[in-house]
């Protein structure tokens, strides 16, 4: 591998680490740690392996077919299923984008002390201008690298001196203690949903096409998906461990986006607090851009419009208008004053319901020799893809009943 390729892999991995954690991961990992300590760490492992399996698959599909996943979804599953997938993913994208924008405004508020309602439109304006001005690679890198501030949670988790034996025990599924079984299962579903959010695969596969990856880049695709997401999952562990050490013994159940930052502050002081807030700001800001773009990619690819961040806005006018409209709609949702943390919980649970619609077509296309030729799924990819699809089906059916039965994890 040449030095240029090594550098590309390193940069891709770094942006994947910073870009993996979004508001859903922050909320669910911290809450799970505060309620169940380290007992749900194994779920993060399952979720991270799931997103690696499907991201690698959809990256490979896009690189080989030179077409993004949503384009193939419509072709492979027909108009009706394609439309159902489009509607479900657009609703979830909008909810997630609104929650992320709320998260950006909260971080700005905690850093500046300015009023939240004033910061919401400013946050949207800042994100829209960044999306317009910055080239595709730069958006990924700026938000991904500055999102690396979240690594402060890994340092905080170590400095808080967890019982490492108990942490290791958390990687093995078993009986639980703390809250009820229903609440435990609700967090299992939420953590899996937060790790396997649909917008991530749509954004990833469209990025593969935008970057003109081909068969030559299949190795790069595999390495980026595997190492990037695995290290991103490491941040989820850190959030859960820090919450398990600091919040669980005190009976703190985090309700605010500012609460996770308390863990970094308590362990590392002001520098820790500022790094955590900047990390959260850029992680959720990057995710807001990804969701608005994922929504626009899906619409453009479904209706066959010209699309791409690399296209001049006037040439891909409907695509450009779509992501601007998604930002505008998300702004309206956040301005209603609805709590971004609650919105996050709903968006993650609804995204779980939409997961089968997202992942089944990817599995089908990756298995289709007509599209994939020699790069069709191997035995391992098929086994894991099939296994995860069963998991996805089960949690998709259980998500809404568990949310209602536990009052959104309140017990």
């Amino acid at each position, binding site marked *: 591998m040449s030095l240029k390729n090594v550098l590309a892999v390193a940069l891709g991995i770094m942006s994947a680490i910073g870009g993996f954690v979004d508001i859903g991961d922050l909320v669910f990992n911290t809450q799970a740690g505060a309620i169940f300590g380290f007992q749900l760490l194994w779920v993060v492992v399952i979720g991270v392996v799931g997103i690696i399996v499907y991201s690698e698959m959809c990256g490979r599909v896009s690189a080989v077919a030179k077409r993004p996943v949503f384009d193939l979804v419509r072709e492979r599953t027909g108009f009706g299923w394609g439309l159902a997938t489009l509607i479900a993913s657009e609703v979830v994208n909008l909810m997630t984008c609104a929650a992320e924008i709320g998260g950006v405004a909260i971080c700005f508020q905690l*850093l*500046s002390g300015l009023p939240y309602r004033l910061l919401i439109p400013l946050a949207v304006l800042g994100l829209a201008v960044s999306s317009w001005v910055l080239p595709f690679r730069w958006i990924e890198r700026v938000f991904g690298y500055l999102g690396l501030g979240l690594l402060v949670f890994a340092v905080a988790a170590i400095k808080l001196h967890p019982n490492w034996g108990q942490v290791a025990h958390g990687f093995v599924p078993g009986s639980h203690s703390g809250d009820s079984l229903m609440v435990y299962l609700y967090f299992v579903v939420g953590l899996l949903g937060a790790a396997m959010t649909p917008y991530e695969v749509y954004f990833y596969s469209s990025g593969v096409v935008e970057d003109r990856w081909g068969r030559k880049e299949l190795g790069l695709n595999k390495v980026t998906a595997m190492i990037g997401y695995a290290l991103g999952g490491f941040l989820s562990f850190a959030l859960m461990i820090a919450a398990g050490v600091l919040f669980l013994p005190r*009976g703190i159940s985090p309700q*605010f986006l*500012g609460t996770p*930052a*308390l863990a970094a*502050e308590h362990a590392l002081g002001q520098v820790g607090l500022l790094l955590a807030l900047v990390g959260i700001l850029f992680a959720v800001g990057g995710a807001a851009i990804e969701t608005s773009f994922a929504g626009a990619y899906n619409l453009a690819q479904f209706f066959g419009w010209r699309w791409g961040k690399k296209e001049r806005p006037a040439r891909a006018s409907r695509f450009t208008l779509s992501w601007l409209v998604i930002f505008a709609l998300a702004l309206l949702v956040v301005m209603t004053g609805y709590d971004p943390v609650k919105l996050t919980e709903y968006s993650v649970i609804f995204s779980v319901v939409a997961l089968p619609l997202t992942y089944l077509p990817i599995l089908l296309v990756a298995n289709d020799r007509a599209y994939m030729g020699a790069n069709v799924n191997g035995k391992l990819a098929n086994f894991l893809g099939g296994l995860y699809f069963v998991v996805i089906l089960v949690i998709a059916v259980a998500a809404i009943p568990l949310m209602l039965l536990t009052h959104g994890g309140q017990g």
Partner: protein
Amino acid sequence: MVWGFPSRFGHMTLRRERLLVLGVILAVLGAGCGGGGKLGVKALSQQAKSLQSLSAEGALLAQDAVSGKTTRIYTREHSSDLYKAASEAEASLKAAKSEPALEPKLRRLTLLASRVRADLKRLGDASKEEARALGRELQTAAEESQKIGEGLK
């Protein structure tokens, strides 16, 4: 009954069915809301848990403020969020009624919520000395809420 032309009898049945369904929905919603605004053991225990969480978080924030680990802005903004949540908890406890056996616990929780709300309001602009005292008070409130919650199990 012919489709599109319901008989008078058929129409009445349909109306009765609809009323029945509406009744069931209202009953379910009523039960879900704690039976006409009365707090049961579970709802009261939830309130105690929530108050414990808010006071413990406030105590942790105060402790960090005393040891210079936090910034002024973060303390002010985060304590303001905690204060708003405590105000909502206090308002809902004040408006709530409970079974006679639970009344003393409801009253204790309401008083506690008022104290926590007032402490969190002061925390935002507190000096180090004040923050130390507020941290102790909030920690005590967290322990009291926990005791009330455990007494309900």
